[in-house]
């Protein structure tokens, strides 16, 4: 049963990744290109916003210290992939792998939540879980540590930024899990609505506290266009929103239409089929 759910989740996740690629091509790539153009202009204009790009970096070639755009002025470093590849096959690969992974994790969560979250059917349960997942994995952590385009970010702080990003992400997911469990516990006494409000308040309280406790990161260059930053971040949310919407609705649809056959197979003692 769990294996079939996992396969369904990863399959829908790949399709959701494909949709996300469409959204990314449409609204994500234009701001990326403009940010790279800004970065190149900064580099040639002598305004070093990063560390000195002039330092020969051959020793550390394996350390991905410099971004290849930084090196354009120095034209020492060869480009590994063209912009066409990065924005095409590279972007597609990244989003499909990410979609499959998120789809799989979503399916495992669904498998645990099934029958434990009141009277919801497959479609309702998948939709609710996807909404909560989008809030916990994407939207709320992004208020603190939002997506940044090329040209934003100091390579020297990548370790710290990566650690902070994943700490907040894990904390957010844990807070959401605790909120849902708490709401389920309270539901019998307080009713579903009030228990849901209590769960929401718990999640908010933890995330606001985390927002104050974790350090601020601001590495946006002074002259970086505000409108471009806004467009980029909106695009990032749009890509995630498309991915999670497709995942929740697609997975729910697949499980709803397979539900009666799933139950028949379980009664017979067989494993359920993929579709």
């Amino acid at each position, binding site marked *: 049963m769990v294996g079939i759910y996992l396969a369904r989740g990863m399959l829908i996740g790949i399709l959701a990744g494909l949709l996300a690629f469409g959204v990314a091509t449409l609204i994500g790539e234009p701001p*990326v290109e403009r940010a790279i153009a800004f970065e190149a202009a900064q580099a040639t204009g002598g305004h070093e916003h990063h560390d000195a790009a002039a330092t020969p970096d051959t020793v550390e070639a394996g350390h991905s210290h410099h971004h290849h755009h930084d090196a354009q002025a120095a034209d020492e470093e060869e480009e590994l992939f063209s912009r066409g590849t990065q924005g095409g096959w590279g972007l597609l690969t*990244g989003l499909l792998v*990410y979609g499959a992974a998120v789809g799989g994790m979503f399916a*495992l969560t669904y*498998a*645990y939540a099934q029958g434990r979250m009141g009277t919801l059917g497959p479609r309702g349960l998948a939709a609710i879980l996807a909404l909560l997942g989008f809030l916990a994995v994407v939207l709320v952590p992004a208020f603190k540590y939002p997506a940044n385009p090329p040209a934003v970010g100091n390579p020297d702080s990548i370790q710290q930024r990566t650690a902070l*990003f994943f700490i907040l992400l894990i904390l957010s997911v844990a807070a959401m899990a605790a909120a849902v469990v708490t709401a389920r516990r309270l539901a019998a006494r307080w009713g579903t609505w009030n228990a849901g409000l209590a769960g929401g308040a718990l999640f908010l309280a933890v995330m606001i506290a985390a927002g104050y406790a974790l350090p601020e990161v601001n590495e946006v260059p002074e002259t970086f266009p505000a409108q471009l930053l806004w467009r980029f971040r909106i695009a990032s949310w749009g890509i995630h929103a498309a991915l999670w919407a497709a995942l929740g609705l697609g997975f729910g649809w697949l499980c709803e239409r397979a539900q009666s056959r799933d*139950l028949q197979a379980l009664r017979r003692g067989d494993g359920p089929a993929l579709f």
Partner: protein
Amino acid sequence: MAHATTHSGTPAVALPVISAAELLPWAVFGGLLLVLMVYFVGAEQGATSLIQGREVHEFVHDARHLLGFPCH
């Protein structure tokens, strides 16, 4: 399957509860694989490197930025 005697609000075909014991091996081994997939898209050859070089980072560069992962 196990819980036939739930409250009146339950639909005719209740979804079966999957026991934690059945779920655990999937969550551990599947979860490990899935986390590794996210890692390669989101963080490999950034703060940490399992594979030498910049190829993974550069190939998924745009996806990494647009998905909001810290990238150089």
